């Protein structure tokens, strides 16, 4: 019988301290300090920035620049007056609908393009065209087609998010290593299983990269649509308070829009970690 000795996995070996290494020996104290500073540094940076902003803002016309304290006050005011809640909900609703539609259509089209050279040839000109076009210029056309309501806002959000998802999905599917396809052939996978069980999982890291890029674009689309098409939601607040020269309220609405982006990105990251733990770069928490 074979008595194979069990080898140590690389990840475990890499986790061992490398203090014996002559290059780092003696410098570990400095390394520890750097690591601690690295954690605190962003916080210090932000606090310092807000302080400077507060001091400088106090000496400037409040129409030009509101101080952080005034922005916070405006935020609280918007929240308690019941203006912010519905605006936030509208923003989330527009974003979620347009972005999710883009995910469904984008992944489907991307998989088709990645699998079939014919489909790829047919669709490539359009994908390249729309990827290169400043799509905001199409907002008036969207209004002509969809009017000035929810549908138009969703259409703009969708239109901005779609292309990165298609391109990244197609790349990931197309770059499935030939040896993995061979494995499917040797072990008699059906054609369908080669797509769903080999090509699509292979594309998952690319798809998530595309989704992150697309999220940023979807946010832009959502805010622009609310500013330019309906004057509603967070975009509506931004436009209205801008027109009224209420800079603190304007900035409070902008910060809320960032919050929408942060929340959406966090949801995306949580899904990736729990549904696709193998995409993680480092420790997978399995040992």
């Amino acid at each position, binding site marked *: *019988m*074979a*008595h*194979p*000795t*069990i*080898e*140590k*996995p*690389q*990840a475990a070996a890499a986790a061992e301290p490398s203090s014996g290494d002559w290059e780092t020996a003696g410098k570990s104290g400095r390394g520890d300090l750097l690591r601690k500073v690295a954690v605190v540094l962003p916080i210090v940076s932000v606090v310092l920035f807000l302080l400077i902003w507060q001091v400088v803002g106090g000496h400037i016309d409040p129409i030009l620049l509101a101080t952080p304290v005034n922005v916070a006050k405006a935020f609280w005011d918007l929240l308690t007056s019941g203006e912010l809640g519905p605006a936030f909900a509208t923003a989330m609703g527009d974003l979620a609908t347009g972005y999710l539609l883009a995910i469904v259509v984008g992944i489907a089209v991307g998989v088709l393009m990645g699998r079939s050279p014919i489909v790829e040839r047919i669709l490539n000109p359009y994908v390249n065209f729309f990827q290169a076009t400043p799509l905001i210029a199409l907002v008036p056309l969207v209004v002509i087609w969809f009017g000035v309501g929810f549908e138009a806002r969703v259409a703009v959000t969708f239109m901005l998010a779609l292309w990165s998802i298609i391109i990244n999905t197609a790349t990931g599917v197309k*770059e*499935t*290593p*030939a*040896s*993995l396809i*061979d*494995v499917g*052939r*040797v*072990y*008699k*996978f059906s054609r369908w299983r080669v797509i769903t069980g*080999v090509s699509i*999982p*292979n594309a*998952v890291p690319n798809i998530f990269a595309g989704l992150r890029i697309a999220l940023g674009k979807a946010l832009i689309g959502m805010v622009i649509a609310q500013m330019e098409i309906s004057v509603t939601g967070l975009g509506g607040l931004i436009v209205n308070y801008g027109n009224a020269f209420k800079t603190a309220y304007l900035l409070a609405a902008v910060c809320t829009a960032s919050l929408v982006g942060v929340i959406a990105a966090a949801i995306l990251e949580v899904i990736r970690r729990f549904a*696709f733990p*193998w995409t993680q770069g480092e420790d*997978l928490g*399995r040992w």
Partner: protein
Amino acid sequence: MTAVRAGAAIDVAAVGKRYGQRRGSANVALRDVNLSVQSGEFVSLVGASGCGKTSLIRMIGGLAPYSTGSITIDGDPVRGVPKRLGFVFQDAALMPWRSVRENVAMGLNEISKSLSKSDARSRVHEQLELVGLTKFADYYPRQLSGGMKQRAGLARALVSAPSLLLMDEPFGALDAFTRLRLQEELALIVSESNTTTVFVTHDVDEAVFLSDRIAVMSASPGTVKEVVTVDLPRPRLRRQGLLDNRRAAELRDHVLRLVMEDQDHQHGSGDQDPDSVGSNGVRADEVPTA
């Protein structure tokens, strides 16, 4: 566990392969290849890079078409991937999104209908034990060393008790000591089964150690130049001094001379490598992905 069934018998007759038939400048990768492998035999294909040994093993495995001649397995011509095949790839080719256990279980896909879930589970378990990966069953491939990945690939190929095992330079990318250890393990595993094995390598020592016969290939066009019978007793264990064995040394020198002669002929034209051309024209595992 598994019923002992006869390994496949392979007959390769007058097989030729040309590719890139553009404007008459067709490249002949293989010409008039003849080789028969008996049931339960271990045959290595050895040759310098460019001799088409990878092309040949892919044709036997139904992964690449051949242009002329015939390849039969147990008398049936190869059209597509034959039944009950195990294939070990150069780069292990594990699915990164599947645990080691799930990757090995993929080898049971073809016979999954005739297997209960608990049978399948115990087969995978036994196979993992055989290659020493029990403790790593729930790891993902990227958490494994190169040697462990190849063990997982071997377990996936063997889990269905295949009648034919094809191995395409499986240990080529491993460090020397891991390679030696895996060779010994493979020799033991294969000798306990009835599987017929075809093994591609450019390592002459590896071929002598493992094989019943060695098919030495030459390049441009690739063909089988000579088949050398390895008349060394089994089991072969390095620690019992196989390397000092005079017969082993003779065989090794003979095979090496055959390969070297061919390389001297080839000198200067060794840039083109038909090995790197697969069914899609290009083997993605050999082309750096951007």
